[in-house]
């Protein structure tokens, strides 16, 4: 503590400057932002009392099935739970992790998503419903693979690093990953930020039509946005013809990002959903273009709150990896020795030395993750979240998660009231209106 309790020059700030003085570049880490932001914990549900009656919390039927992207697609994406696994690349994750995630999604009737590196055949085999990402890098993009997908997602930005591309350190770019991406093995890969074939929203409309033509208008086209200028971006994506819009907030996860982007760009999930909802409402496309929220979704309450604010579904990344054993002290691991941090604190995904076999390509470390056991854990977690979601929905007197609405919520802080556009608890006042 060289500067006492100084707020500006806190110990981690001093350490940060020392590190950069040694390093001569920005720092890199995984997981998500360290910023304290308004999140779902700042909202609470106003469950039933005398004004309305509840459904039996543990037993009565509650629909959790949702349909996404039905605006133009012949075959919309139908999910048994409004929670799916977000795009994470084979490369950032091991093949075992990707396979486990796909299998888990299939076990609970939901979807998984490819990532910045193309489709892993084992992932396709494991996934009943696979969303195929089209990213600026186009690594591994194969129209033959895309033709097998249940949905296509054009990635414009990522919440963890909006305005820039992905990153994969050379230690993870081993031969197979390099071949799949057409890259020299061992390079520190920094993906492009812009798509190679289109730039603005007018071009995007033509790109969306191209992907529809390539897939015979059968599957939904999603557009994924890093949550920044949400209202305008959502309107432009919808006008360009997106069937679904994924809003990925500043608390969303990553396997590697410059710290400065993680902590200093984007907006949190709660206001991102509200801004997107209002933008769609303004152009008459709310509940027609599906809205998918991602970033910091940890449990059924987060999902329920996201749906109440206006999302049609949520995508999870970090939570699924934690279910897979991320940051868990398993018998084969020694976090302190192997990654230099205790289990529970690790955000060193970018080093490729993941002690639990998830964020690594090392053949020995990969063995620490059994894809079948991992799939069981993630499926259990997805089922738990879905049960929590249904439990909360019934407690609000509703038999369908699609009936959740902003009126079901109150804010615990003034900031949350302003961002969620719901009243502050104990008042009738919605701040910022």
């Amino acid at each position: 503590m060289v500067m006492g309790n100084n707020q500006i020059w806190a110990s981690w700030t001093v350490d940060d400057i020392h590190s950069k003085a040694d390093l001569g570049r920005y720092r890199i880490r995984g997981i998500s932002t360290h910023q304290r932001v308004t999140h779902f914990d700042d909202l609470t549900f106003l469950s039933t009392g005398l004004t309305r009656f509840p459904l039996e919390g543990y037993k009565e039927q509650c629909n959790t099935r949702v349909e996404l992207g039905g605006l133009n697609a012949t075959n919309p994406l139908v999910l048994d739970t409004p929670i799916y696994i977000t795009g994470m690349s084979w490369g950032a994750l091991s093949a075992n992790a990707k396979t486990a995630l796909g299998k888990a999604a299939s076990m609970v009737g939901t979807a998984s998503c490819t990532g910045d590196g193309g489709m892993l055949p084992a992932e396709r085999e494991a996934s009943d419903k696979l969303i195929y990402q089209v990213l600026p890098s186009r690594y591994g993009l194969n129209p033959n693979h895309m033709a097998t997908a249940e949905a296509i997602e054009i990635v414009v930005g990522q919440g963890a690093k909006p305005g820039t591309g992905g990153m994969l350190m050379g230690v993870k770019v081993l031969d197979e990953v390099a071949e799949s991406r057409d890259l020299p093995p061992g390079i520190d890969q920094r993906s492009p930020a812009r798509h190679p074939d289109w730039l603005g929203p007018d071009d995007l409309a033509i790109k969306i039509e191209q992907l529809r033509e390539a897939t015979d208008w059968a599957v939904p086209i999603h557009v994924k946005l890093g949550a920044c200028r949400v209202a305008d971006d959502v309107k432009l994506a919808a006008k360009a013809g997106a069937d679904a819009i994924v809003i990925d907030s500043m608390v969303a996860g990553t396997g590697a990002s410059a710290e400065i982007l993680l902590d200093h760009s984007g907006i949190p999930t709660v206001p991102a959903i509200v801004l997107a909802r209002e933008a769609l409402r303004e152009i008459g496309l709310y509940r027609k273009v599906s809205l998918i929220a991602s970033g910091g979704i940890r449990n059924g309450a987060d999902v329920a709150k996201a749906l109440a604010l206006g999302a049609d579904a949520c995508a999870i990344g970090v939570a699924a990896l934690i279910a897979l054993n991320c940051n868990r002290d398993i018998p084969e691991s020694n976090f302190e020795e192997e990654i230099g941090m205790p289990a529970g604190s690790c955000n060193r995904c970018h080093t490729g030395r993941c002690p639990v076999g998830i964020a690594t390509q090392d053949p020995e470390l990969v063995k620490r993750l059994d894809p079948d056991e991992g799939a069981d854990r993630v499926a259990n977690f997805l089922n738990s979240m879905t049960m929590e979601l249904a439990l909360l929905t019934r407690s609000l007197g509703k038999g369908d998660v699609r009936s959740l609405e902003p009126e079901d919520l109150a804010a615990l802080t003034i900031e949350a009231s302003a961002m969620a556009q719901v009243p502050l608890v104990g008042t009738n006042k919605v701040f910022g209106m």
Partner: protein
Amino acid sequence: MVSLDASEFTTRELNKRIKEIVDDAGSDIVISSPSARHNLVVGIQKECKIAIEGSVGYYAASQLDGPEISIEGNAGWALGENLMSGKIALSRNAGASVGASMRGGEMFIGGNAGARAGISMKGGTLLVAGDSGFLTGFMMQKGRIIVCGDIGDAAGDSMYEGTIYVGGDVGTLGADAKFDEPTEDELIELWAELEAHGINKRPKFRKIVSQKKLYHYDTLERLERTLI
């Protein structure tokens, strides 16, 4: 051979009809009156021959794996985007991003190519008889771009691997790109390729390749050094 008058179909109807013909009969197809429409001949993953008589818009002959396409006219942006295999020949000029992220096959542009020709290219050959624009070969990963004429600024910016051959002048080189000299055997091979496309010039090509200085971060953090 099947003739299709594009003016009688919507884009959806035309692409669907083309796929049906390719799937069922495998006949050669001639498309007339394309009227520079976007997204013509998209997403075909079979060997076939298609001739387009006229100019096309954005994304013509894109997302293909196997077909042989000839276009008599000009093309808008992203002609041949993500070509996996097959051949595309354009008689006149191509707009921006021709051959974007192509992974294989051969493309021939009879006129000039716009900005970002061969951007994110991952394989195959893009041959431009005339000039090409700004950021040609941007972030190129593999394959060959052959430009008989001049290239604009930032040529080969941030390219990983692959080679750009240029017969004329270059505005500026992009980040991490450098000039190199082709071997005599390379030149003979290039000239033979030009001749096969009816180009009788023998430009004294120069090569643009990656300096490979941006392959790695120069430094690692203390903890990273022990792990990576």
